[in-house]
């Protein structure tokens, strides 16, 4: 291998310009992805069975004039592409139209709810990470131990446990018997809000923690089997030093999958919100879907996709930052 050559190339590429370029390329890719998604989301209106105009007024009794005004408002008589561009233009200005179910703009409707879902998913993300990652590491460190076995068994159960049943169980145990946590509602803001979200967040985290536990354990076990660990041991490095070696390596796959976990969380709060009667975007979506409130459905779908895409982008950048190998590959 021509080391001098590759070294020169590397130093050149490691310069700040390369990172900017990397981010720009990824941003562009994310933008493109979102554009395609927005198209799909827009097409929902036309894919839903029935006349789009009728779909937009819901099941209210409608006069032909009202239908016509809806057609005009949404440019439904224009060519498809024009309609899309028009809609996209509005969306980019934060205008998703009006909710069919409640006569408010989708934006105001969402504004009230996004915060709650965001808080709920952040809290359960934090819980997941705080609990599952250390347990996964500990279990991997002592494969086959009682801790490993019991946690692995628990994680297997956790993945399959129906959200509603878990939620109810938690409500009974912690809300009623021990009376530690409030059993309903989303609190008055501030700390109270977080306090109210604890049980829902645990419910949401239970299934996810199982996944993260497994993931962390697998990643750490894989690293522990690497030659560099044996080599480090043979050189007499302390347990602490070896742990830090292993963790730095294992945390790369773990941290990046955690990004996706967060994205998944944000889109996966539906069941918990329904179970705990929380008014976040999940329960709004569930309601809007059954009521065929298309503008709301479109907005939530696109919003969630955006959050996921941006998280993926952040993960890529994180990857770039923590893994020198990716830095090299990413730049080629």
């Amino acid at each position, binding site marked *: *291998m*021509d*080391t001098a050559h*590759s*070294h020169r*190339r*590397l130093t050149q590429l490691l310069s700040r310009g390369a990172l900017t370029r990397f981010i720009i390329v990824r941003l562009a890719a994310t933008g493109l992805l979102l554009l395609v998604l927005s198209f799909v989301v827009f097409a929902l209106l036309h894919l839903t069975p029935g006349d789009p105009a009728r779909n937009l007024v819901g099941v209210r009794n409608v006069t032909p004039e009202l239908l016509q005004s809806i057609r005009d408002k949404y440019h439904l008589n224009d060519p498809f592409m024009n309609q899309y561009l028009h809609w996209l233009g509005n969306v980019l200005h934060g205008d998703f139209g009006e909710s069919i179910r409640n006569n408010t703009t989708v934006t105001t409707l969402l504004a009230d709810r996004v915060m709650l879902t965001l808080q709920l998913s952040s809290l359960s993300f934090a819980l997941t990470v705080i609990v599952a990652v250390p347990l996964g590491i500990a279990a991997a460190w002592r494969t086959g131990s009682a801790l490993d076995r019991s946690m692995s068994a628990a994680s297997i159960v956790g993945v399959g446990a129906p959200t509603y049943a878990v939620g109810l169980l938690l409500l009974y145990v912690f809300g009623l018997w021990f009376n530690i946590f409030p059993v309903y509602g989303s609190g008055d803001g501030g700390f109270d809000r977080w306090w109210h979200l604890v049980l829902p967040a645990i419910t949401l985290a239970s299934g996810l923690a199982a996944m993260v536990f497994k993931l962390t354990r697998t990643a750490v076990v894989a690293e522990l089997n*690497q*030659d*560099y660990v*044996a*080599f*480090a*041991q*043979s*050189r*007499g*490095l302390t347990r602490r*030093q070896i742990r830090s*070696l292993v963790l*730095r*390596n294992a945390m*790369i796959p773990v941290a990046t999958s955690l990004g996706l976990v967060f994205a998944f969380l944000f889109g996966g709060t539906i069941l918990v919100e329904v179970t705990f009667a929380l008014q976040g975007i999940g329960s709004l979506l569930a309601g809007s879907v059954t009521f065929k409130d298309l503008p709301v459905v479109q907005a939530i779908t696109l919003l969630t996709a955006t959050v996921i895409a941006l998280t993926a982008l952040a993960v890529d950048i994180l990857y770039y930052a*923590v*893994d*020198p*190998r990716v830095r*090299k590959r990413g730049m*080629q």
Partner: protein
Amino acid sequence: MNRGLSLNNLVVTGPAGLIVTRMDLHVEPGQTVALVGESGSGKSMTAKAMTGLLPRGVTATGSLQLDDITVDLALGPQALAGLRGQYISLLLQNPFTSLSPVHRCGEQITAALPPDLRRSKEEIRRRLDEVDLPERVARQYPFELSGGMRQRVALAASLASNPQILIGDEPTTALDVTTQREMLDLLERIQRERDMALLLITHDLGVARERADKILVMYAGRLVESGEGADVFAHAQHPYTAGLRDSDPPLEHRLVELPAIAGSVPRPWEVAVGCVFAPRCDRADDRCRNEAPELVGTTSQVACWKPIALTDASHPIQIATDVQAQNTDNDLVVIRGLSKRFSSSAPLALDNVDISIHSGEAVGIVGESGSGKTTLARCLIGLESFDSGDISWSINTPMAQRAQIVFQDPTSALNPAMTIGATLAEALRAGQRSKAEVVALLQLVGLPSEYINRRPNGLSGGEQQRVAIARAIAPRPKLLICDEPVSSLDVSVQAQILNLMNSLLKDLGIALLFITHDLAVVRQVVSRVYVMSNGRVVESGNMENVLQSPQHEYTRQLFSSVAGK
């Protein structure tokens, strides 16, 4: 006081049974002891037992003595924890995996230093300097370095805590010939400077012969012979040692047939009674088969009931007269001006290569790693496209009947989901031959016909390679390309395969393109050779002539790197 290291009565037991049995070993300060033996003989397990790094499910008993310290190995890996690093350190085979990929080299080298020295620039420079690496390496990540450089970093790291004894488990096997030599030189120098003991595990007899003060020969988990340096081979007492020595192809001349040891290495735990080598030994008698011999002797020791005496006549070796390259005009294939670049930023993998192969002729290509040998073979066989130049065949048959190829790694050469019979039948069909020939094919490569229904997983490496060869000759190609077909096999198996190739060539009259970096191996097979470096053919000619009087600087360098020959 440094009195070296003694390993007494080591027994390693795995889940299936004994892996290493009653092993004793002593290394003096400043001494190099080589541990040789075929794959699976327990060399690595011995090294791991000595450092307390045995895999899960494998346990050891015995004791380890270092200075005034005696460690009972039965106490488990923790017992050795205090010794690792300070007294004893292990250097692994694969430089590509033995360093953490996301930590800088400097960090990894100094990790074993006392905390106050870890940040010292001066110290890092000194350490890098010792292994002939520039200072910048400290800030680089392993993946930014070549294999040789990485192995130097690993060496620096294992020396960081100034061990009294360094165990190298095939520390140079993954490197190419020239780098291998540099690395061995470096090890030797450091060892001398530090008066450090070195336990060198290798399967390369040449390396052992050239570098070791003392050589231990292992077979199926047992020590069968030990003695002073090159003497062990020169005056081998154990038939196994002699067999190993004889299977190792010489560079000086070509043999009509390599004296291979028949059969294959048994699993250590499968040997019940008697001498472990008895089943493969042509000198074995009833006692050998029923009673295990003890290791006896003083300076040199041997575990054999019927050791070979100095006076015993050695096998008569038949030196073949090299087949002269026929300067016929019946070229089978002619390659002209072949060039290939993998990506615009990469250097040329092939640079204007001219090669021709005559019908029925055995041609070799030698060169160090990355010189383009494989790329050339792949272009020739159509697995890779090339940028310019041309390949012209003198025959007009379908590709399958023009050339076939045998790869280096036998374990992945065969489809694990197909039986041997199915694999061969498919190859026969591709050459428009009858399926009925499967049995004949197996016989041709020396395998029993029951193998038809076996799957590759149940076969040894040598057997797998035989099947791969059988598949390659099934369509009766005019050219057989072998890309390092024996470099992952043990010497004894290697000899078997090389013999097989020679006999196939003779019987089938096909041409051979033999690619290798091992000059001694190629010597045994081909009549004409091309030497490649950096994608270019730098020298070519009759094998004999090239060996005798290499013209190109690179060729000379290549020859001088060959150890112990």
